[in-house]
């Protein structure tokens, strides 16, 4: 990541396209998780589900998209975006902390049909938040060392695509576990 060479347009297209393959594979994990939830637990959710906490996580993650896009736009314009990426990571970290808090105070029995799916899906998603945060922090660090420029920043794009995927997946998760 430190040796960013000048990429051709074709090179940029390649890295961007190839990264979507990775995201597609990740998406299949959540397809499996969500379909298992409906297969095993049917429709409906228990009253103990902490809906306001789920909503707070959703809002934090959606809000993190704004500094994310601001950061990548700044890098695209040849300026530093590390600060903005850091803000996005901070919002993501708050969301992760809320999920940990939720697990610590969980009222749904883990052994129940709904409960085991809830824990499995939120746990898997928390792992993806952690991965996404790692990616954001690595590119923010690299950007603060001035390793990217207007032409070469596909790593920032990759971290942003992955983070957007994490946010979109949470929105789906919120619907699957808190609304249905």
């Amino acid at each position: 990541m430190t040796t960013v060479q000048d990429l051709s347009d074709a090179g940029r297209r390649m890295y961007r396209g190839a990264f979507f393959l990775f995201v597609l594979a990740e998406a299949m994990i959540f397809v499996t998780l969500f379909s298992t939830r409906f297969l095993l637990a049917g429709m409906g959710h228990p009253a103990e589900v902490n809906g306001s906490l789920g909503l707070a996580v959703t809002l934090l993650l959606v809000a993190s998209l704004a500094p994310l896009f601001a950061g990548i736009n700044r890098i695209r314009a040849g300026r530093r975006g590390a600060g903005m990426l850091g803000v996005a990571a901070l919002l993501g970290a708050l969301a992760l902390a809320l999920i940990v808090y939720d697990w610590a105070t969980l009222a749904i029995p883990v052994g129940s049909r709904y409960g085991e799916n809830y824990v499995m899906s939120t746990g898997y998603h928390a792992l993806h938040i952690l991965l996404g945060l790692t990616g954001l922090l690595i590119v923010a660090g690299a950007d603060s060392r001035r390793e990217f420029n207007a032409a070469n920043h596909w790593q920032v794009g990759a971290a942003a695509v992955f983070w957007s995927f994490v946010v979109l997946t949470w929105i789906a998760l919120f619907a699957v576990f808190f609304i249905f």
Partner: protein
Amino acid sequence: MSEHSGMIGEAAGPGWLGHAAPMLRAALWGAIGFLAADWAVAAALGSRLGAEWPVVTGFFAGSTGWVLGGGALEACVRPWFGPAPAWDEGIGAGRFLRFHSDHKIIGIQYLVSATVTFLLAGLAAMLMRLELMTPKLDVFADAQQYNEAFGVHGSLMLFAVSVVAIVGGFGNYFVPVMVGADDMTYPRLNGLSWWFLVPGVLAILLSPLVGGFQTGWTGYAPLAAQDAVGQDLYYLGIFALGLSSLFTAINVIATTLYMRAPGLSMGRLPMFVWAMLVTSVLNLIWVPVIGTGMIFALADRILGTHFFDAQGLPLLWQDLFWLFGHPEVYIIMLPAWGLWLEIIPVFSRKRLFGYGWAVAGMLGVMFLSSYVWTHHMFTTVADSRLVPFMTTTELISIPTGFMYIAALGTLWKGRIRLRTPMLYVLMSVFNFLIGGFTGVFLSDVPADFQLHNTYFVVAHFHYTIIGGMVFAWLAGLYYWFPKYTGRLYSEGWGKLAAWLVFLGFNCSFLGMFVAGFDGMNRRVAEYMPYLGGINAWISVWSFVLGLAFGIAILNLLISAATGKRAGDNPWGGKTLEWQTSSPPPHGNFARPPVVTGDFYSYGPERGVTTP
């Protein structure tokens, strides 16, 4: 070796210890990681060292130590924090014993590990056949040990040999060369992929040390939930092998889509590359599904959930398993078809017949293969699922037929040279016909009710996997041998081994069809005495088969050391890998190749490719 350039300071080579240092470090870190985590968790929980949590955390820590110790720490992790990547990729033999980003080195790493795993899992099969020589239990101490043996045999052969040998070995080595690229899209991710393979193989291979697993390679619940700790290693091992396949799939698709040489349109792509592309799409989509299934099942055992056990839905495991498990059959077979259609034109000196139809057939198999999984579960699912999946399964034989039409149409009136690779391909075409036809029997619900869980099924899938894929893999090993070693193999020994493999294989596995019809159940260590004759016949021929595989591989090993120089293009092939030196240099081509015609215009001179 010849890569001594002036840039390398040492006049003398690094010596064997220097060559092997990174792999020794990886093994040391892996062992320390496993033992430390195992001991720490066991002490914290007050449990045995071989209990579930200590072994599971030990596996994670050990694998991490192994991957980082091999060089991933310096090559992949260190650059995240600022410093430039600092990893010496070694010279000579040392390149194969460390983290390396050259796709050709990785391909050889995959080929060697797949061969070693093949021989080890084959040894388990030999033990099983020795047990089945007589109706009574006499080799293993009890039936559970026999179960562990076929579990290890099946899991390794399916997840670490047949989906890895061609895809990881030839796919890594030849896809970039055949599309005229200098390397894969993500070379370091590619380097990582092999390092995940080894912990996966070791987990399954060593699972008998903590009680093994009784479920066989399919890991069916609810038996799996009650099994010994070895079952956890089955889940973890297959998860690690899945990661390895996934990384390769991402690279193969990206390389094929984005790194083709000028002039190489998709419509000119060599058949092997098409096969690898289609296979990788299947891997990309379905490996995450079974990986998640493995995590569900692991949670059932260590976290107290009830996804698949008797309180949950055991059938859901079967669905998740076969959602990958059936596409996997085509992940195994599509690369083999690619090899058929690559090798047959070269040794028939004739244009590939029906290129477009063969590609359409591969795509058709790719789409249909995701809609047939329930045919493994005809005896367990609701009646409403029987006819739809019988129909899709029988439909898939149509695109498969396109591959046969292309192969036979190319052979027709060709000038056939019966060299060892061609011999293996023709044998594979013959064997797979039997495997495929018996598959149509089994897709038929009434026949399947009768034959399910008998040796008929065992014979059928060994005909597709050994008869189809392993024969094609051997064909590829011999076909590309001059390219990846630079030497010629011994033709006489090669042909002798080919005929012995063919004889041993067909005599033993045709016998299994008979045993199956006669009522021989699969996965049993003891059987009714009236089946003794046919089982003794199968066992004797399977020992011949094991010996023949040994000769075939030994011939390659000896020839790699002592064979004559092969030159760049001993077969007169037109695909790009034959237009560069043997073995290709780092970066593959002296000048970037430009493709000006299609690759299969043998016979009358038409389009040509210029390097």
